[in-house]
């Protein structure tokens, strides 16, 4: 455990409470482990199906970043909305959307969340308050601010969690949204998932201000840098930001320092970074191993952990099976859902 803790010089600095985050209960640790494992196994399977040609187009995997969505989700309550960009499978699973429906959308089948008409980057669930799934980099930031606007308009006490990456953080509409969110004190948590690369461009090559928690400074939006590889730190930051929003104090920015293990998309060989860099993060900071090691240190049996592995694998395998056998959408679906 000790060996895993922030050994790398480039490791994200935990700024929550100035030190290590509050411990999870055993129940929380199990939940975090299970939810993160589900995302990882799901994404591995999606990568496999893509390689087999069962999934087409773009497919952006979330492997490595699981602690961000799982920790944030643990800080939310029923009714809070989630919106993100195109690296969205993890967000959907974290909100409780069914693996079958997500995987079937990836394969373009009628049982997918968008009946096969949206694909990897465009899925939604009204029931789970998941507002997409957006393919235009940065567009979700204005939309997510609009969700917060609606919460404010309705005075419903809900918070909009608006995710975007270090790449999207350079888009103009992000700052237009920041301005209005603070001006109107909208309840929105801007979660900037800094995975260090905007496609193939390292943060240092694209961003004049690399501390993304300061990106709201000229609008007076407070921000925090968070160890996005430690699910407990994420949850603690999420709790603080949600409380801030619910108190009517306006938006907050959380920069989640995280890392994606795979390429930008399935077609990206990721030649812009070294294998050693990836291996080091995996070895030193892996979000799932952190929890597993804590549980083992707390004398949880290997058998209990294996049971979680098995449950998750069953869900993922069933979803892959469903997604490959579910029929394609009926041809008549071409013409539906253009207008209502």
């Amino acid at each position, binding site marked *: 455990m000790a060996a895993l803790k922030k050994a790398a010089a480039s490791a994200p600095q935990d700024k929550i409470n100035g030190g290590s985050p509050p411990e999870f209960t055993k129940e929380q640790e199990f939940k975090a482990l299970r939810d993160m494992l589900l995302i990882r196994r799901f994404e591995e399977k999606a990568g496999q199906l893509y390689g087999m040609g069962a999934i087409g187009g773009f497919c952006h995997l979330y492997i490595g970043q699981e602690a961000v969505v799982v920790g944030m989700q643990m800080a939310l309550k029923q009714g809070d*909305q989630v*919106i993100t960009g195109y690296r969205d499978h993890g967000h959907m699973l974290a909100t409780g959307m069914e693996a079958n429906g997500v995987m079937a959308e990836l394969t373009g089948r009628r049982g*997918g*969340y*968008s*009946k*096969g*008409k*949206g694909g990897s980057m*465009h*899925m*939604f*669930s*009204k029931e789970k308050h998941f*507002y*997409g*799934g*957006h*393919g*235009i980099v940065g*567009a979700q*930031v*204005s*939309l*997510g*601010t*609009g*969700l*917060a*606007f*609606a919460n404010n*308009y309705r005075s419903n006490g809900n918070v909009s969690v608006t995710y975007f990456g270090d790449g999207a953080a350079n888009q*103009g*509409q992000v700052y*237009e*949204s920041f*301005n*209005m969110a603070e*001006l109107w004190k909208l309840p929105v948590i801007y979660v900037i998932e800094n995975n260090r690369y905007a496609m193939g461009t390292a943060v240092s090559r694209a961003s004049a201000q690399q501390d993304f928690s300061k990106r709201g400074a000229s609008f007076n939006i407070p921000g925090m840098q968070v160890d996005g590889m430690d699910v407990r730190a994420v949850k603690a930051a999420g709790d603080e930001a949600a409380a801030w929003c619910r108190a009517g104090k306006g938006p907050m920015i959380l920069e989640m320092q995280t890392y994606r293990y795979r390429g930008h998309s399935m077609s990206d060989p990721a030649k812009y970074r070294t294998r050693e860099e990836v291996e080091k993060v995996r070895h030193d900071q892996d979000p799932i191993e952190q929890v597993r090691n804590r549980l083992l240190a707390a004398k949880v049996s290997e058998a209990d952990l294996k049971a979680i592995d098995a449950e998750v694998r069953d869900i993922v395998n069933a979803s892959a099976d469903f997604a490959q056998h579910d029929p394609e959408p009926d041809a008549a679906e071409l013409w*539906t*859902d*253009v*207008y*209502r």
Partner: protein
Amino acid sequence: MPIQVLMPALSPTMEKGNLAKWLKKEGETIKSGDVIAEIETDKATMEVEATDEGTLGKILIAEGTADVPVNTPIATILADGETAADLAKAPAPAKQEKAAESAAPAAAKAEAPAPKAAPAPHVAEPDPEVPAGTEMVTQTIREALRDAMAEEMRRDADVFVMGEEVAEYQGAYKVTQGLLQEFGAKRVIDTPITEHGFAGIGVGAAMTGLKPIVEFMTFNFAMQAIDQIINSAAKTLYMSGGQMGCSIVFRGPNGAAARVAAQHSQDYASWYSNIPGLKVVAPFSAADYKGLLKAAIRDPNPVIFLENEMLYGHTGEVPKLDDFVIPIGKARIVRSGSHVTIISWSNGMSYALKAADELAKDGIEAEVIDLRTLRPMDTETIINSVKKTGRAVAVEEGWAQSGVGAEIATRIMENAFDYLDAPVARVTGKDVPMPYAANLEKLALPSVAEVVEAAKAVCYR
């Protein structure tokens, strides 16, 4: 020689105004920059500042005088040493003189021009949407739009208006006048100058079920926001398999105003009408503006509502009904005829209707169709008319290439080819950015003469 003060043009489209008040009396000393009078247009009261020094010699237009044409002498200023006896020497005003130089109106982001007040167009055919015997009220299009929004906001608490200057300023073009006072700042929201951002916020709010009316000060500025309009508003219903749509109206003036040049004078009708998932409405008459805006606000889909700044001050008869809603997607035959069909919408209708009057003098009876909605397009009404006349002319202020007229011509070709006695003709804006010079601007736009010529050509006359 005494200096004449002329009635100033306070905006690019102003032709006349009311002399509300004199702030200086005859005989008073005037310094350059002094406010000497207040002028009322139909949307604002503006101050007239003196640009010359001297004594106010004679007031030529009494306060309270209405409809004083621009460039009319309103007073004379006597220079040092001059007396009332010199008044007779004042020169007659030169027609081309730029009267606006004697006034300094407050500059907005885009100076909001006041429209021409012109009479309602000749309407030959009764509107089938209006029950016979309905009492009518005369309203400007500006008022009709305001009433439509106010009525829908009273009816549905989820409807709100957002945009630049819509609340405290009462609208850059005064279309949202009084809404803030009735509905408060929660529902009538001034935004920063940030089109991309507030369009996205509107769409996000609409995804949760609210019904925003997003005003663009003009559609020229909506190009900053077009990604949110098309990629987010128009496509989400489809991409979500029908789960999540977006009931939202994007509205504001579109197309050419007057003398505001290329970046403020573009017609976006064909751009938006290209997009499945959007509805596109572009009315001409005051009644249609009201009834269609109400329909647009209620529509569960994103609606692009294209207004025309030149028409805001036009008056028309609006039915006095509790709930006057015109269905989207229905064209209207405004004038019936048997020789040629002229199809247009929005301000294009002003050329079409005047051309029909001209043609009638030559014995050509034109049937004039106001499309009102561009998407979905009422093909049936066009085709039925062309089957009757065998000839068609499409009139639009936008450019010809990939224009709405091109689409109309194609639909006629596809559906009524065997009925055509001549190729379909188009009258469009010229294939150039809008020039500033008055003569060039006039040349760049369609004209009544061009519509008459095109109609005669398809009639082989």
